[in-house]
């Protein structure tokens, strides 16, 4: 078994390296020159420096100052994505014949009409214009350097390059949202269902400081917005997945009339107990989940756009078989009001202002467990409740003059968090107990970020970020403060923090295909409200109750990243290496038997890299390779850092022709033997390799079938970041039927 996995890894490495050495050969194959020009639809003038990307690949190029670009492509059908600052991203279908050079003219519409978030230099955009994957988690899992922490068959939490929890900022359209569950059952990524996910904007490392000061990176879930170009459209998809007997129904509707547009989505997911590999049924792992999104948009010419959206998410009876309790009910509402204002001429190019509010409620309990046999806190039920409420304001002011772009971001929010727990003894006459995990914690934060980029000349690009965050936080309930006095001898728990982040990045185009980028960053991450003020937080991994520490210092990270990328018609790749040195790393240290407090450890470091390669084997066949590795070491305890994913990768071959898309994927991970045994209790995890097959076929302009088999070989395995060795899903066959009106 293990030998077979090792063989897999060896084979994939060989393919990778042979691909790595072969690009010169690959480029020599027959390609056709495709040239084009990008123009402004309103002014009919060229749009300089637009980005051109071949959808589904990392191939792409940039326009020169006269809006011209050119690419080399093998014959076939492609979709080009053209994006430029201040313009709506356009998609153009392009047929490349076998001999005639192609020329395309692309008209870009000024951005206020349908904006997409700006081009990201520090991170990557994973786009899903046509959902081919079944969940937001599946989309994230495709990205190298992202590893999902799995606690149940539900709502997986992303970690980036070995960083997780408060080290990673997860925002929805830039909005701050905080999990309500003190056991981290409800990552923010659960609230954007795949039908609402327009783009997954992943910024690894602490280089991009525009959305959060998180040192591990930021994931921005960009939601779909009402589309003014679709007077009426309706899409629905329904289907089944066998492993958990998951039934899913999702619908999307869009109305537009001149300057007004409405979009609504709704999805239902019902899952039973799932089958792990080898046909093992995991009892108590089902769930029900309902999600909706209503958004309204109004525009005034091309200059103003006002948007309102409400996302609602409800889940019931979510089984967490490897944790102490199940989530009984979760409920969230996320409201956003946004104004986008574009300016013509002048150096002020746009202002985007958002006000938002969200509320997350989370109930969990152990009523369905045999609590008499539990090791920790036996013979009692422990229903728990958690709530967060966040209100915020986000303002992005963009200045542009020639090749200089400056974004000024003002980001302020207020978080209120509460969590409590009852303990109800089973024996008659036993008296109940009660505690508060988060006693009305209030955190008021304000930040100013500057994001400046300058195209020094057509081959050299410089970008730098600067961010200051201030926070004022306190435990506002007297009961909550009193409880903390059992650990901290003080009356006042108020804290102020001020942190500073700075990053800079230089990208240089080495030649027609290859570019190199060097980035440096120094950033600080404030402790989370739980790390400062949490009380009696049970950690299932090491079995300790964690207590917050109001005296924590921010984590301070210094990072370096080097990227080498090649964008060519047959073979494109991106190779990234990074070093992350963290001081004041926050971790639990034993305070007394059963109890740990969060403490700043002096120093840890992480080193790693990612690789993504994409081969175009023929006009309809493509292969891609993704690999990621992180090495994390705790220098204070001289042991590996916990929860570091092993070497993992994804290899995909896909075929796309005449409405039929087929893909075979192999996802694999090497064993993880570097485990933490002092700061927490991990165990080693064996490696694995699984095979997935996916397909999509348009049987009619209005009807599309999606189908696939995940874990074809029905392997029984778990991943290193799966909590308590939570087993992965076994063989899963899925079939979904989608209908769209109007048809394609």
């Amino acid at each position: 078994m293990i030998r077979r996995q090792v063989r897999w890894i060896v084979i994939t490495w060989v393919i990778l390296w042979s691909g790595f050495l072969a690009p010169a050969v690959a480029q020599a194959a027959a390609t056709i020159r495709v040239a084009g020009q990008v123009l402004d639809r309103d002014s009919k003038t060229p749009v300089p420096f637009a980005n051109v990307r071949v959808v589904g690949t990392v191939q792409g190029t940039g326009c020169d100052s006269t809006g011209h670009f050119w690419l080399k492509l093998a014959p076939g059908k492609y979709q080009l994505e053209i994006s430029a600052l201040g313009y709506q991203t356009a998609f153009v279908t392009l047929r490349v014949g076998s001999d005639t050079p192609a020329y395309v003219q692309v008209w870009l519409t000024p951005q206020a009409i349908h904006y997409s978030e700006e081009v990201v230099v520090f991170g990557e955009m994973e786009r899903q214009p046509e959902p081919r994957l079944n969940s937001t988690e599946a989309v994230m899992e495709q990205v190298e350097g992202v590893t999902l922490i799995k606690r149940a068959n539900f709502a997986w939490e992303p970690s980036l390059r070995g960083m997780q929890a408060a080290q990673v900022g997860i925002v929805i359209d830039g909005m701050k949202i905080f999990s309500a569950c003190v056991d981290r059952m409800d990552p923010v990524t659960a609230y954007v269902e795949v039908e609402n996910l327009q783009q997954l904007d992943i910024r690894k490392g602490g280089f991009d400081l525009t959305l959060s000061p998180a040192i591990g990176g930021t994931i921005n879930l960009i939601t779909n917005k009402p589309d003014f170009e679709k007077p009426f459209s309706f899409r629905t998809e329904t289907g089944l997945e066998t492993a958990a007997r998951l039934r899913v129904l999702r619908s999307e509707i869009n109305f537009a009339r001149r300057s007004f547009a409405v979009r609504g989505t709704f999805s239902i997911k019902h899952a039973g107990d799932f089958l792990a590999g080898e046909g093992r049924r995991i009892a108590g792992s089902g769930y029900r989940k309902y999600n909706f999104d209503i958004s309204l948009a109004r525009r005034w010419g091309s200059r103003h756009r006002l948007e309102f959206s409400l996302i609602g998410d409800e889940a019931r009876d979510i089984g967490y078989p490897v944790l102490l309790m199940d989530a009984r009910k979760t409920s969230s509402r996320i409201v956003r009001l946004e104004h986008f204002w574009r300016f013509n001429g002048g150096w002020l190019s746009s202002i985007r202002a958002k006000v938002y509010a969200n509320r997350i409620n989370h109930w969990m309990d152990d009523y369905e467990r045999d609590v008499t046999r539990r090791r920790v806190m036996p013979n009692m039920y422990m229903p728990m409740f958690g709530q967060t409420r966040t209100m915020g304001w986000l303002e992005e002011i963009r200045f542009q003059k020639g090749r200089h772009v400056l974004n000024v971001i003002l980001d302020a929010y207020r978080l209120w968090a509460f969590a409590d727990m009852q303990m109800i003894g089973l024996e008659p006459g036993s008296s109940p107990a009660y505690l508060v995990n988060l006693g009305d914690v209030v955190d008021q934060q304000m930040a100013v970020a500057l994001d400046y980029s300058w195209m020094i000349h057509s081959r050299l690009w410089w970008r730098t970020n600067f961010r200051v965050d201030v926070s004022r936080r306190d435990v506002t309930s007297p009961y909550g403060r009193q409880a903390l006095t059992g650990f901290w001898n003080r009356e006042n728990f108020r804290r102020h923090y001020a942190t500073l982040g700075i990053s800079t990045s230089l990208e240089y185009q080495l030649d027609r295909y290859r570019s190199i980028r060097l980035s440096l960053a120094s950033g600080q991450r404030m402790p989370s409200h739980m790390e400062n003020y949490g009380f009696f937080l049970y950690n299932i991994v090491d079995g300790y109750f964690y207590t917050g520490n109001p005296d924590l210092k921010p984590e301070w990270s210094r990072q370096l990243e080097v990227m080498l990328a090649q964008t060519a018609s047959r073979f494109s790749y991106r190779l990234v290496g990074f070093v992350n040195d963290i001081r004041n790393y926050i971790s639990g240290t034993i305070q007394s038997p059963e109890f740990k407090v969060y403490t700043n450890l002096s120093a840890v470091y992480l080193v790693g890299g990612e690789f993504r390669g994409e081969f175009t084997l023929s006009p309809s066949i493509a292969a891609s390779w993704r690999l990621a590795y992180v090495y994390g070491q705790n220098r204070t305890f001289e042991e590996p850092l916990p929860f570091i994913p092993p070497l993992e990768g994804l290899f995909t071959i896909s075929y796309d022709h005449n409405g039929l898309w087929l893909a075979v994927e192999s996802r694999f991970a090497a064993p993880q033997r570097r485990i933490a045994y002092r700061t927490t209790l991990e165990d080693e995890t064996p490696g694995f390799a699984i095979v997935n097959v996916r397909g999509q076929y348009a049987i009619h302009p209005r009807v599309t079938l999606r189908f696939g088999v995940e874990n074809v070989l029905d392997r029984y395995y778990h991943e290193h970041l799966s909590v308590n060795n939570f087993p992965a899903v076994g063989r899963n066959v899925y079939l979904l039927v989608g209908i769209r009106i109007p048809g394609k």
Partner: protein
Amino acid sequence: MKNIRFILLSTLFIAFLASCTKSTTEVEPEVDPTADLLKIGEGNFSSTTVEIFSDGEIEVGYQRLFVRLKQGGEKVVTRARVEIFPLMDMETMKHSAPYENPEAIVSENGLFEGAVVFIMSGKWMVTFTLQNLENGDSGKVTLTLDVAASQRVKKVTGSDSATYFVTLVEPRAPRVGMNDFEITVHKKESMMAYPAVTDVETTITPTMPSMGHGSPNNEHPVHQGRGHYRGKVNFTMSGAWRVDLQIQRGGQPLCEVAFDIQVP
């Protein structure tokens, strides 16, 4: 339009900043030292009037008593000597209880504080022997007090066969989190003599019996004088707690008692 927006933004900024620097000014009012006390009796001798206060309803346990003397019913006496003697008459026998006389003979606010450990519920006679040091007058005042029952005093027989009274002084109002934990230990030498025990070591173990867990960061009570032992107890949550107390002398176990404490 641009200006309006700018003004709006800066107002928001300033409002946010302002909300961070809220200041409050408090005026300290003059306090009557007996404001939080309960008057339980009065009397007089010569030209001195006597008021006696407690800091709560009189019940079994360590009871603080406060005496205030007034010259001619007006002027508060700040120099006095106060002695306390409690007595319970059970018809078949009489007995006293542990008590503490006020140590000071000068009190700026005019309150002389002593204490009685009421070891049983029922009718007690507490005699105050008083000397007004400002004019040399002296006299006695006796109060009859109805003492309510409580679980704050434990009577145990030690390994030396002597009878001990262990009294829970603090927490009087237990709350979640860290609490002062204070006990007194007295030995019954005779029906009338209950001296303070000052030479023992104590350890405490708080637990929640119905939950089966304890709490961290407790501090064992250490002798502070006059048989008072003070430490810290951490009640991590609301509910029924029990504090087990082991008393040792010279490393040898002397006795064990337990106090049940309900934490709101």
